[in-house]
């Protein structure tokens, strides 16, 4: 798909005429601007990008990008996007969903798009609240979250989006955060390069309804102790002095400090290419304050894509019959 002689695109080429209207300080501004930067360097002609979204704050994003865009009903974006990709496999199809959109209304479609391994880049912009509906609890709201729909605090167990994506057999699973722009670009570029369904959770701060919910991962003072940046083939270390790490005790993960008999040999090594998603799943379940949370690529494996399998299944069995032969059927007769 990459054409070397393309005119170089700049982030500005991806700005649409629409006035961007998110709340001041919304994390979506950062996501939009990183996306424009990444799209410009992918070597894909602008008209081949398609952005599919639902309604909601995240769903406005396609309107702010000067690519082809289609905004459907809440939750259905993965199904719409799969249809787009089936119509023309030359297109690079991105899906932008919020947590209410993807995990309340559209969980079913999301799971099936991932398991089919259609070449979609799915961005889950997670702010742990239904922002566009004016701030009710979302399926990812932490226990105890006070909202209009949970005045005594949210008590349903929150979904962990990456655990769900892994259970749905996703081949690329990553997490990044709105304020860490370099990390976000890096993750988005890797997602764009992935052949298959790529799922990226982006922690996003909703200034109005759920402000500060990811502060532990953004506050320069503490984030070294609360975040592990995943690097393939490297030990899972964290802390200002990088003297803390993760080890396994039986099936249980433990956060430990090096020394006192604990050595680097005890620390888990990250392997995003592991055939089985066991380690990725374990990492996807780590949440604070007991554990640092992971940012980066959890899983990045190759499995035949939906289109590859579709082509393969088409080649199997007998050759397609000419349409006229199908019209005639097997039992036709001729009246003279």
């Amino acid at each position, binding site marked *: 798909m990459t054409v070397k002689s393309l005119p170089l695109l700049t982030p500005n080429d991806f700005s649409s005429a629409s006035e961007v209207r998110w709340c001041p300080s919304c994390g979506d501004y950062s996501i939009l601007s990183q996306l424009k930067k990444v799209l410009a360097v992918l070597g894909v002609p602008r008209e081949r990008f398609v952005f599919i979204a639902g309604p909601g704050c995240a769903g406005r994003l396609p309107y702010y990008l000067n690519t082809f865009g289609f905004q459907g009903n809440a939750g259905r974006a993965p199904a719409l996007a799969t249809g787009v990709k089936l119509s023309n496999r030359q297109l690079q199809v991105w899906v932008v969903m919020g947590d209410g959109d993807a995990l309340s209304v559209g969980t079913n479609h999301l799971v099936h798009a991932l398991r089919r391994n259609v070449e979609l880049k799915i961005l889950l912009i997670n702010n742990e609240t239904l922002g566009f509906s004016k701030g009710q609890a979302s399926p990812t709201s932490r226990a105890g979250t006070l909202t209009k729909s949970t005045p005594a605090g949210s008590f349903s167990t929150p979904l962990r989006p990456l655990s769900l994506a892994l259970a749905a057999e996703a081949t690329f699973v990553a997490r990044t955060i709105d304020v860490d722009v370099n990390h976000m670009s890096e993750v988005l570029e890797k997602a764009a390069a992935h052949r298959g369904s790529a799922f990226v959770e982006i922690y996003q701060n909703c200034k109005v309804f759920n402000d500060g919910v990811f502060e532990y991962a953004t506050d320069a003072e503490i984030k070294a102790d609360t975040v592990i940046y995943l690097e393939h083939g490297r030990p899972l270390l964290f802390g200002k002095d990088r003297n803390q790490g993760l080890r396994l005790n039986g099936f249980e993960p433990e956060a430990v400090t090096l020394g006192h008999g604990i050595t680097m040999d005890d620390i888990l090594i990250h392997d995003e290419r592991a055939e089985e998603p066991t380690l990725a799943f374990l990492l996807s379940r780590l949440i604070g304050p007991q554990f640092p949370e992971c940012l980066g690529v959890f899983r990045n494996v190759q499995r035949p894509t939906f289109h590859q399998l579709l082509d393969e299944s088409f080649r199997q069995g007998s050759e397609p019959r000419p349409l*006229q032969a199908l019209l005639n059927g097997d*039992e036709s007769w001729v009246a003279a």
Partner: protein
Amino acid sequence: MATHEHPPIAKPTRAASSQPKSSGVVRNLDAATICFAGDAGDAIQLMGTLFTNSSAQHGNYLGTEPDPPAEIRAPTGTLAGVTAYQIQFAKHVVHDAGDLLDVLIALNPSALKHYLGRLKPGGILVADSDAFSPFECQKAGYAEDPLEDGSLAAYGLLAPPITQLNRDAVSRVKHSARETERCKCFLALGLAFWLCDRSMEPALRWIRDTYDKNPVMIEAATRSMKAGYHHGETCGAPVTRLHVDKAAIPAGRYRQIDGNDALALGILAAAEATKLPAVFASFPVTPAGQLLHRLCEWKQPAVTVIQAEDDLAALNLALGAAFGGALGFTATSGPGLSLQTEALGLAVMSELPCVVIDVQRAGPSVGMPSKSEQSDLLHALYGRHGDCPLIVLAQSSPSDGFAIVLEAVRLAVRYMTPVIVLSDGHLAKTAETWQVPDLHSLPSIERANSTQNSRDANLAPPWLVPGTSGRERRLGGQEHDDATGEIDFDPANHEHMVRTRALKIAQAANAIAPLEVVGPASGELLVLGWGSTLGAIRDAVENCRRRGTVAARAHLRHLSPMPRNTEEVLKRYRRVLVPELNAGQLASVLRSRLGVEVISLAKTQGRPFLASEIEAKIESLMQDKTS
């Protein structure tokens, strides 16, 4: 069946022993209906197919309807395990398998119990007397052997020991007992050929072709079928045989086709006629699932098939494909259509060409999945939130599925709109004789607005296909500015868009055929139908005419918008009768949209109309001219 292991003592052919001989008499008919019924293991579908082929070779128009058992695997000999195949063969065009039977072949008591109610008084009843042991009779709920208790006196009963006759016929062929029993169907079929004055030759040829690696089976099956035919000739049964002359069929290639297969072929032909890729996305739901099966089986490069996770996903997949520049198709039924309601709104709002095929079944909710109804009409016309008009068409006979899909696609790409095609479970499984079209003779379908940036004369918006440089644009379910597609909630803009979307659909009436009347151009009574009732209405009006009661009839294929002349046509008659398989939905639409008072004939039993039911209504209306 149990009787195979413990064969009862062969009984004599009862009709032959008790009544005078008159086997030479043949009655000429314009059309006749036969039904083969038996247990799931009795090869009923094979018998039906071979009888159909023979009748086709004879030169008749045919309507056929397989009736599979209600359960996937039912216990042998029970009512739940009865399977049947009904065939109408005629000198004239027929659209269905007929309603009342001239001949019933019942291979066990349960089959008799299940189908006897459909046999005309005086009709021919063939029963395998070997299968009517007390045990088998009990399974069907008969306290007494119905062949013996005089309860069948109203019919021409022929009850030979078919099981035993078959064993005798193949006794000299060396094969297993199981293979012997497999030949029983050929004996019954031979008898049916004699009764209906059909040639055995096409079926014998089928046997030779099918078992070409198994000469023993060829010999056994051939002997069995001939024995059945000769039993008819020699038993001296007092039944009157039937004869239906060949029809005056125009030259050409013909086949039997059921409603679902015709729809599926229509989808393939539409991709060919538009030279566009197509995506068919569907969740398998009875009775629409066959479309998914067929399109997978007939794999064609132009049509990508995907099994969706649910019906709502299916329409979103189709819609995504339409956004991407392909024809989007889905097929659904029952609650699946309810699920698709949300996506239909998006399809109307985003003005993308896609086709929803709704093979209606009896509802609401899960309803009766295997039973037919026309009760989704109001849902198709109005079942969306917001002011949300779209085009609705109805398939009126099995083979019409092919043409109606082409019509749906023609309108979808001309007006950039979703189109709902209403079929139903009855059309889905009924097959009729179809003159196979030549692919090269199909008119090509042009996309109306592929180059402009604004609406064309038909109010169709441009189809801005991703991949086209310089036409990057956003589309969606939110109200938007007509020219730019950008979100716009301005009050005047919304009103303008609501009107524009409605006007576009209303103006599609310019591109559809006027409503045609068969019979008097004005007068006392018009029978107006839509969808699968065409066959029953036509037979009813024709039967009345033969008796001297003359009514006109017309049939709607376009339900939204309706043909321009609909109101004018209806007002030419003093009364309008609207038979439909729902609680009167079209009748209420005609009243509210056209302000025309109509008489509703509603039926909601999960079964199609019998022509006689419509005839009775026509007769009573024509006698009571005062009301």
